[in-house]
């Protein structure tokens, strides 16, 4: 009977699926991981929408930076300064990756060190952004350049801020023993999130400073 053989095949697949002792956790982990990656994708769409707005506004005027009503052209953003700040953020991505690798090697002290380094670098980046905002010559409401710049970098800065808080929580949880053995999905998610925040900055750095 076709039905019977198909049942046997299904049955075997199910047996394999439930064979692992930790299958419940593994399954939950897979579900959460997929959910988290999809969340990152929808976040990418939000950034993309604002980036589209920026490109559209930029493309709809003959000069960029735009010329104000008074007839003077707005200044470009400071590339050299932003380049340093960018490397700080990218560096925090590298330290985060090292932290995760230390965790996988079960090297707790190295993990703590790298994670703290990541947090410090993240705060340094935010500070650098704050200084740039403080000394900026364009304003949020003053021009389309200011509108897209402050909206996008502000949204990104908000993500960095949330990320720093998340990393602090992870630091506390990891040292309280919330994560054990192969059960450390929170750390995976934190790493992915932090890398994602870094990569968004690559796009913003290119769009606002280099182009």
């Amino acid at each position: 009977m076709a039905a019977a053989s198909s049942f046997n095949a299904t049955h075997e697949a199910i047996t394999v699926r439930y064979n692992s002792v930790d299958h419940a956790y593994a399954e939950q982990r897979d579900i959460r991981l997929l959910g988290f990656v999809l969340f990152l994708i929808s976040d990418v769409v939000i950034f993309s929408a604002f980036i589209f707005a920026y490109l559209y506004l930029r493309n709809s005027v003959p000069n960029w930076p735009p010329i104000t009503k008074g007839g003077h052209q707005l200044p470009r953003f400071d590339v050299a300064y932003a380049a340093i700040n960018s490397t700080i953020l990218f560096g925090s991505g590298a330290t985060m990756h090292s932290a995760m690798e230390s965790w996988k090697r079960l090297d707790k002290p190295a993990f703590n060190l790298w994670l703290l380094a990541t947090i410090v670098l993240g705060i340094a980046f935010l500070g650098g952004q704050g200084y740039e905002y403080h000394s900026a010559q364009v304003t949020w409401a003053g021009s389309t350049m200011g509108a897209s710049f402050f909206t996008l970098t502000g949204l990104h800065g908000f993500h960095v801020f949330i990320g720093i808080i998340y990393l602090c929580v992870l630091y506390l949880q990891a040292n309280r023993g919330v994560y054990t053995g192969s059960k450390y999905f929170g750390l995976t998610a934190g790493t992915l999130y932090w890398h994602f925040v870094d990569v968004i900055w690559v796009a913003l750095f290119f769009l606002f400073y280099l182009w």
Partner: protein
Amino acid sequence: MEGATGVTASIEKSIAFVFAIVVGGTTSFQLAKDWKSTGLDNQVTKLLLGLMAFGCILVILAAVGVLGGV
């Protein structure tokens, strides 16, 4: 904000250049080490690390004046 001029800008660019070499090198090394790992999380991580290395290349290009020059 208006870019810093003269000596300040050169110093800033040199710092950025050195930083970017270090970070980009580290990232590329990490990427190479993880190259064969599997699983959704690792695949995404590799993609993101690659893009970050690309970001470091952008910084280097900016520091040597290929990109972002007025």
